[in-house]
């Protein structure tokens, strides 16, 4: 039997222990069972297991190893912070650079403010704190955007879908987007979706927005669309806002049901390859995604960028340390170790911690140019509600320890 103890310790800015809260960890999730299954059954890449990552992307996972490369399945130990990227695929002894990359803070112990009950199929925290020292935003602010240039447009109708990539510079709850559009004829309402992708693309593993579940969905009614070029930035507020994480890749997807070339929505874009860092630039410059088969597959158009704005608000941030494992102790009838991480509140306001999660890496295999390469993603394997709430005041440090223990 394995049981887990969850310990939250709050320290003053001078290092004195202010509060220690110990509760039973209750909630290893289906994600943990799935990763154990992949390992035990030695799942091959020719028949991978599909499971959803923390951005709700349906992701293939396997144990294929093409010497000398292997995948770091089940890894939770992690580098600190949001400015570092993490390279989880090793060539036996040395990291290689074509693996998936993401902020170290996304892997290992994570904390949040949400209170939604835990279910076995949870794939992300209800509301996660990102890395940094940004205070909570009182109202939505413009976060990512492309508002330079505007010299072309693309017709959206029928099976012609479009997607704009963006990588949040800080973790926030996305509340709405604005897209620069106009209508031609009577296209009907414009569907607006937010989807995650695989991790930030590397040179050989560019993800597309086709395989994710909708993180958020909304619509822009036809009546709200300008009837002539160049149109205007029109807002779509999402009834259920959703967290988007610093350093992860997301897409704003637009499409309509039906329509034709005379009854469509035009999305404006800039062909001048604007020198902006966000939305992301790949190795070719900015890019736009389009699909001619309702999102079943996608094509990149480089050196241009959709015109959009994305709005949301931070719930506050912690400076997040590395996730460390230590203290393996074995003494019959028990054995245990500790997973630990420090969270420093430097955002200027008190932050309420209501949930703790554990995120693990698992690898996938993809083919490119006749060769197979390892890549991967990250998956929520445990989630616990903290009750009662632990309030971390500005200047304080929270130490979270997860202690799995087996007993014969």
């Amino acid at each position, binding site marked *: 039997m394995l049981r887990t103890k969850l310990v939250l310790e709050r320290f003053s800015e001078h290092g004195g222990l202010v509060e220690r809260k110990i509760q*039973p960890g209750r909630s290893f999730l289906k994600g943990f069972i799935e990763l154990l299954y992949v390992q*035990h059954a030695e799942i091959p890449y020719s028949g991978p297991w599909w499971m959803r990552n923390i951005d709700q992307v349906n992701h293939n996972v396997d144990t294929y190893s093409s010497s000398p490369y292997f*995948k770091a399945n089940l890894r939770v130990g992690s580098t600190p912070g949001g400015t570092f990227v993490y390279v989880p695929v*090793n060539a*036996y002894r040395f990291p290689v650079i074509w693996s998936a990359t993401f902020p170290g803070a996304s892997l290992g112990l994570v904390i949040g403010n949400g209170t939604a009950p835990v279910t076995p199929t949870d794939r992300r925290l209800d509301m996660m704190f990102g890395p940094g020292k940004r205070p909570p935003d009182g109202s939505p602010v413009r976060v990512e955007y492309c508002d330079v240039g505007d010299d072309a447009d693309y017709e959206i109708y029928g099976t012609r879908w479009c997607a704009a990539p963006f990588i949040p510079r800080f973790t926030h709850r996305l509340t709405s987007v604005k897209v620069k559009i106009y209508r031609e004829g009577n296209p009907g309402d414009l569907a607006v979706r937010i989807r995650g992708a695989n991790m930030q693309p590397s040179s050989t593993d560019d993800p597309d927005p086709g395989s994710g579940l909708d993180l958020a969905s909304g619509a822009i009614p036809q009546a709200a669309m300008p009837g002539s070029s160049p149109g205007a930035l029109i807002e779509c507020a999402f009834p259920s806002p959703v967290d988007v994480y610093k350093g992860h890749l997301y897409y704003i997807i637009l499409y309509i049901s039906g329509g034709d070339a005379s009854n469509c929505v035009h999305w404006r874009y800039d062909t001048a390859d604007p020198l902006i860092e966000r939305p992301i630039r790949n190795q070719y410059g900015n890019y736009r995604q389009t699909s001619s088969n309702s999102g079943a597959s996608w094509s990149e158009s480089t050196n241009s960028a959709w015109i959009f704005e994305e709005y949301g608000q931070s719930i506050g941030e912690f400076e997040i340390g590395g996730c460390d*494992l230590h203290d393996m102790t074995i003494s019959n*009838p028990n054995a245990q170790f500790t997973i630990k991480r420090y969270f420093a509140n430097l955002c200027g306001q008190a932050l309420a911690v209501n949930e703790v999660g554990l995120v693990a890496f698992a690898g996938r295999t993809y083919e490119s140019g006749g060769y197979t390469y390892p890549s991967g993603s990250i998956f929520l394997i445990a989630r616990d509600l903290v009750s009662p709430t632990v309030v971390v005041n500005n200047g304080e440090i929270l130490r979270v320890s997860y202690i799995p223990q087996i007993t014969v």
Partner: protein
Amino acid sequence: MEGDEIEAKLELEVIKPEQIPHLFEPGEVGCVLEVVVTDKEGKVTDHRIQKSQSFVRAFLELLWLQMQPVEFVDPYLIADVGNMGRSLFENIRTFGCAVGIGDTSRGIRVGTGTTAPNINDYNLETPIGHGTGVGQLQYSAMTFGAPASDTTTSQFTITRNFANASGGSITVNEIGLCVGSARESNLYSFLTIRDVIAGGIAVPNGQTLTVNYRPQCTV
């Protein structure tokens, strides 16, 4: 006495949520151990479901190896089924046990030992070998049931059949799970679960013992 080779094929079974047994309290991660004895006609002659009591140390050590991660420059020593310390670092083979017919190096294994489990157990006390000789059982290939969940519990299934063509009855008193972990091209075997069955399970000649381990998480 020679017996027929049992047939076994790799197959994927999807468990419906209503079929998931609930033996664990919220927060517990464990295995449901199900044993079934069937005769030649497929009639069930013995059927038991119980909590597996005993992850042993190698389970947690291998989890540590993967989660940490333990790297090449500072490997971690884990005792294999021969009680040989193996210097390991994170590798893709950890927990693998998808072995074929007659392969007793990994997968579910059975034995006749009756000593209570200890956290430091590294092998079954008295393993039963593969074959049709006296005191032997025929080990099938390992099979796995895909992960499934209901409103509280997630699980997958690990299965192996043991056919008795030895000519006499065999009593199984202990059951264990052996998994792999590798150091570069060298694959080793480690005991991660050991259960002792109260009173033992008699497997008469001509009958088959099926063992299901179902790792479960309950929220």
